[in-house]
């Protein structure tokens, strides 16, 4: 079935299978391998991307449901030569370790800041509750967020 979608500001038409997920579209069809799958059930947040600016678990979204929408993955933020402020804040505050959850975490933070640019620490913890990090970088992620909400 055909879906017309914008991915990282590129318009495209894709012929997808009925049970194909958004993460499969990104990784297998479009070669955008920055988004990772870790649990397959939409719980861990590693696969988080933005649809029309709002974070979703791409492992649960059917490709059929992105028709007419705009998808932003980790590859779609920042511009040539300049990192997005969230990416820069993650570097500054050492907010990653193995990095496997990091793309999803950054996209979730993008969603948080779009919705609540002055989010408190409590609001950030609540919003990011669906992004798991086994390496344990929660404090540093919150510090990165704080540097952006208090900026």
């Amino acid at each position, binding site marked *: 079935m055909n879906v017309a979608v914008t991915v990282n500001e590129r318009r495209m038409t894709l012929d997808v299978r009925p049970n194909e997920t958004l993460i499969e579209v990104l990784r297998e069809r479009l070669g955008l391998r920055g988004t990772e799958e870790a649990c397959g059930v939409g719980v861990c947040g590693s696969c988080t991307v933005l649809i029309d600016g709002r974070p979703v678990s791409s492992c649960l979204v059917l490709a059929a449901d992105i028709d007419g929408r705009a998808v932003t993955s980790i590859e779609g933020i920042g511009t040539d030569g300049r990192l997005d402020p969230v990416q820069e804040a993650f*570097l500054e505050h050492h907010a990653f370790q193995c*990095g*496997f959850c990091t793309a999803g975490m950054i996209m979730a933070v993008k969603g948080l800041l779009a919705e609540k640019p002055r989010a408190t620490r409590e609001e950030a*913890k*609540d919003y990011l509750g669906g992004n798991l*990090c*086994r390496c344990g970088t929660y404090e540093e992620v919150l510090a990165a967020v704080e540097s952006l909400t208090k900026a």
Partner: protein
Amino acid sequence: MSMIGKSIRRSDGPLKVTGQAQYTVDIDLPGMLHAKVLRSPYPHARLVRIDASAAEALPGVVVLTAADLTDLDNAFGVTLKDQPIVAIDRVRYVGDPVAAVAADTIPAAEAALELIEVEYDPLPVVMDAEQAMREGSVILHDTERPRSPMFVGWPAERFRRNLNVCSGYHVEQGDVESGFAAADHVFEDVYTLPPIQHGNMEPHATVASWDARGGLSMHTSTQSPSIIRAQLAEIFGLPENRVRVMVPYVGGGYGAKVFAKIEPLVAALARKARRPVRLVLTREEEFATATRHGATVHVKTGVMNDGRIVAREIRAIYDTGAYADTGPRASKKGGYNSVGPYRIPNEHLTSYCVYTNKPPAVAFRGFGVAQVCWAGESQLDDIARRLGIDPLELRVRNLLREGDTFVTGETLHAVSTEKTARAATAALDWGSARPAPRRDVARGRGMACCIKSTSTPSNSSASVRLNADGSAHLLTSSCEIGQGSMSVLAQIVAESLSMPVERVTVSFPDTDVTPFDQSTLSSRTTFSVGRAATDAAHAVRQQLLELAAGQLEAAADDLEIVGGSVFVRGSKAEARTFAQLIRAHFGSPAGSLFGHSVFQTRGGLDTLTGKGKASATWFFSAAAAEVEVDLETGKVTVVRIATAADVGRAINPAQCHLQNEGSMLTALGGALFEEIAFDGGQPVNATFLDYGLPSFEDAPLAFRSILLETPSLDGPFGARGVGESVISPVPPAIANAIADALGGARVRSLPLSPERVLEAIARASAEKVTA
């Protein structure tokens, strides 16, 4: 500017925040097939018949069963070769691989799996390790399995109860019976903890291919490239120079990816398919591949009224699941570490490694110490309460000190037991007045101490190659699993060569190119690989000084190196950059300087006496926790946690703190809610829907990581390691805080679920009523 002690930004940062970092799951090879594994639905059964003909008839499908492996020994295992690549005639846990399929797509592979017919004849099941040790128990392995050189337990006749006990360890000093007889009080308790999941976000993944000369190469998400190469070479009858293991960024390991796991299976499937094959495990398969050892620990401690511990007897039974993996090593390590960081005249420490029909228990952050620390440190608080002595004070009276002899007979140096204990507790205002109690909410504080060893003997090599333009490569087989090893090793080389850290690149492991490393485990990378890297860099430094001495016509002793330039002390005008020195030496900007070093730690424990040298360096740590317990629901909120770890020297302090945070959070999950549960051998919570990992909202409200720096004797710049230091004392610190909140009510099983806390409260009030 010195690079040591600097929290510089990690070199892999820009790749990880842009999604450009490549993990094994991201690697494609031309012509690659996708693999799926057929797994046993029974916890224990004879494999009667397997018919894959319908699956094999599908176009482009290749099926692997044990029938394809009759030309080799279908078994692997780093201590005992007891694990079949695919099942031969028996399955021993739910998830045990029975067959594997390769096809052009995942859906095609899944469709093929459905067509494989398997006939099982179920066998009785044993799920409890203590039961598995008893006469008459169901037996998992009918014959004693061949041992590899990495097996470390007793000779069989010493520990064998039945064939389910695959390993044992014992060490003692003094005479515990006399000790207990002389003690004013003897405490005897049993502590348990279940298997838990590593939770590595990147699943196990391997891409394997064979070439026309019969050589095997693979990309794999592992912590042990050098050892896996050796294991594969042995399995397939190849020399090691025909087996190539390459490791990109690893999305989390924590022990799950130590030594061979899915590599033999993928290699065997690729061999049959004659095409590259990639296998990526699903999250459910992760639960069926690697877990942490559950254990039952019997602790008996004799004390005097003044708090001196005079005798300690430990019997720890480690449940290694269906296959041994590193169980013999983990249980042995738990054995001698079980006494805790205390000087006790009479000690009797025994550990067993036992098979049950659970998925294999493997290396896990904390490696055998978490289990015994949980038991010993919990009991010590009960003892403190009974004697009316402050828990910190009781410990301080008994701690090991500098120069003490450990139960293994070795002398301990750079001992910071008291410093770490006091640092963690001081951070929680230990001894200060408690906040006023609230209705239905009790508040308490607890602490725990820990001693931990590192895998000894071991072997790490490093090569430093200085390119013609003065930039450098460090070649090691260390894996970047999130701990920041690539950055820390670059800092060490930059410091050792007095050159800018941005001009040092650290390689990914590639066993064709990078020299041997024991493994990225046991908190050893900074200590062992870092030391080898320092020495390799110094070898290059020496060559640079000799070149400069010739070119500047000065004595090498009069030369200094700063920022990648060499000059005669006091005369910077005549400086030569590394590039200039190399160009002058070779006559053109070509060629390189090369330095190599092997850092070997020696030691090991005698198999009969358990004595010898257990560790090249020791880790001392402590944790303190403050909790709130909701008396109506039993829910525990961790308000504050402080951990103190002696890292020897913090090369990159920010990364040390991150390691402590990761250890603390994993420990917190295991303390409060993580548990792999089974019902009659069937796993019941093998997805992230049912098995929770700590989230932002589970983290303590405040966490403080304290680093102490008592230099180790042999580590680079005095560094030891930090990766596992605080994971073991956190759960008993939390349990001790709960007991403190509840006037002594004690939970002796992890996790400290609300149900168990309420039960403990009910038991305590019942005891008060009857007293």
